[in-house]
């Protein structure tokens, strides 16, 4: 690594910032990490703002372009280039693949972020904190429960839940529809979101809880925690002010890696037909339609490649970013 000369001001600035901030600066100096962050920003904002960005309607069928490869309209201005081209071709119903991929990304993005926030971060970190700090019976109950959930191979558990819970959840959503001012919930696919998030959360919390618990077990024996306790700091203060910030580095790495695998599981679920239901586009279903029959792949490869590239980009960027984060946050393992 290049030796950089630091002047006195620089050194002071470095000292004032925490370990985490310094690590983030190191991260931004890595080309691969920056490329990943940019790729994720583009893909994710394309997905989140699909309603505004997408050039077509995802259900609109144009019978003039059925199973056509990428079409670029270049001769009638910039607006027409965006709204009349089919950047990724069209499917057998004449629907624009680029638009459908964007909407598919939206589903994947919402699901994985919701599952990660609730399962990985909220449930996982809280239980890990509790388990590590309280110890004793609380620890035993939480960790044994984790062990039971963890003794299913995670994809098996996700499949069982996604395949069986749907009717019950749809019932609940209907009930909510009937008893509140909310309408059209069933049609909007909320039930699908709930089912898949539950399936993803079911295994998503275990690894995180174990990780945080391990960190806390080490940290709670340190002198600064002991002194915090000695001057009468409350338990929540010790937990959130002293323990959590010091345990955050591995959590960040594991979130980044975990996002990659959650994207993978979500795609497998909708590929198997138990994820997002049509007509809503999902990457998994598009991959299924484009790849299950070899003659489709031979004649119209974009049907498989367009959703394939989108999911590949997401998984790859999260994994590479996780690697880079691991490098800057845990220098010992370098």
């Amino acid at each position, binding site marked *: 690594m290049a030796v950089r000369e630091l002047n006195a001001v620089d050194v002071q600035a470095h000292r004032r910032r925490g370990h985490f901030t310094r690590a983030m600066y190191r991260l931004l100096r890595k080309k691969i990490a920056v490329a990943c962050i940019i790729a994720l920003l583009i893909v994710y904002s394309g997905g989140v703002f699909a309603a505004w960005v997408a050039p077509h309607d995802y259900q609109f069928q144009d019978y003039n372009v059925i199973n056509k490869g990428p079409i670029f309209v270049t001769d009638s201005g910039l607006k027409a280039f965006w709204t009349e081209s089919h950047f990724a071709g069209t499917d057998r119903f004449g629907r624009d693949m680029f638009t459908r991929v964007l909407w598919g990304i939206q589903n994947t993005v919402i699901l994985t972020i919701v599952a990660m926030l609730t399962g990985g971060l909220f449930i996982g970190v809280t239980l890990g904190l509790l388990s590590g700090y309280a110890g004793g019976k609380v620890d035993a109950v939480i960790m044994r429960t984790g062990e039971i959930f963890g*003794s299913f191979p995670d*994809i*098996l558990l996700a499949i069982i839940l996604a395949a069986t819970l749907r009717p019950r959840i749809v019932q609940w959503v209907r009930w909510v529809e009937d008893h509140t001012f909310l309408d059209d919930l069933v049609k909007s696919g909320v039930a699908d979101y709930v089912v898949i998030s539950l399936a993803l959360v079911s295994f998503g919390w275990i690894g995180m809880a174990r990780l945080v618990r391990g960190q806390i077990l080490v940290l709670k024996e340190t002198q600064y925690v002991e002194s915090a306790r000695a001057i009468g700091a409350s338990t929540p203060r010790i937990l959130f002010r002293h323990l959590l910030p010091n345990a955050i580095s591995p959590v960040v790495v594991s979130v980044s890696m975990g996002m990659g695998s959650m994207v993978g599981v979500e795609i497998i679920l909708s590929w198997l037909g138990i994820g997002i239901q049509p007509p809503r586009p999902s990457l998994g279903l598009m991959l299924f339609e484009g790849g*299950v029959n070899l003659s489709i792949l031979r004649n119209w490869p974009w049907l498989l490649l367009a959703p*394939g590239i989108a999911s590949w980009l997401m998984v790859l960027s999260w994994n590479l970013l996780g690697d880079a984060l691991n490098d800057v946050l845990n220098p010992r393992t370098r």
Partner: protein
Amino acid sequence: MAGYIARRLLFLPIILFFVSLMTFTIFRIVPGDPVVVMLGPKYRPEVAERLREELGLKRPFLVQYGDYMWGFVRGDFGESFIKRGVPVRDLILPKMWLSARLAAAAMAISIVIGLPLGFFIAHKQGSWIDPAIVSATLVIMAIPIMVTLPVLLLTFCTKLHWVPCSGWTGGFDSRILIPAVGLGVIGVAALARLMRASTLDVLGQDFIRTAHAKGLSPVQVDRRHVFKNAMIPIVTILAFSLAGLIGGSFIVERIMGIPGIGGFFLDSIFQRDFPVTMAITLIGAIFFVVANLLADLTYAYFDPRIRYS
């Protein structure tokens, strides 16, 4: 060591008890009546009632559970709801054996390519080869298997005619190549990365320097000291990669038309064929738990520090 094994073994039935109770509960509380699935949309209520009686679905929940588990531990997994009169065991064991052979082939590919690759690039740390291969493995690992497999098929069967395109005749046949490679490729990347990390860890230890200092040739140091020690953590990972293979095999079996356990499992869920789903889930969980246990025991055997913590 004996105490450690005893502790772990004692815990095994307790985990399996909860796993089975959880699975059983999931399938009993979900809506969707197996009797309705069996009889179709138009059925006479009396018939349905009699069928429920016959299948023992009207007994209290815990009695059903106890009865099922008592059969399960004696190796009797009940009879299928859908294929009446056929023991679940005869239905699933051949399919499991088939999927297991596929998984074994895939794992063999991952190990044979992944471990030496990881070992090699660990020795190249600091040169461009190391980051290049690490990035390449990540790039390959991220390709969804539903893309890899059709592309492999198109290239090697339709275009080049090297292997037959689909179907299944048994383990030792060229037909196993594409599904095994498709499944194995993911593992290659994962194993290579882990092996690299583990080898780097060992290379930094003092006893490696000692080995060099006492005059062993680099090849001998690698063979006697580095490789053996780097393998220890890998053993635990192999059990976990089994889980990854299960996820992939659902997809591989469906694309390739292989009559394995994955597709059968999904069908059984949709048809509410509880005994089949239960048996597959439980056997899967037992395999997984035992594999993890074996991995931990191997680890504890090689690294005594684990036993006492």
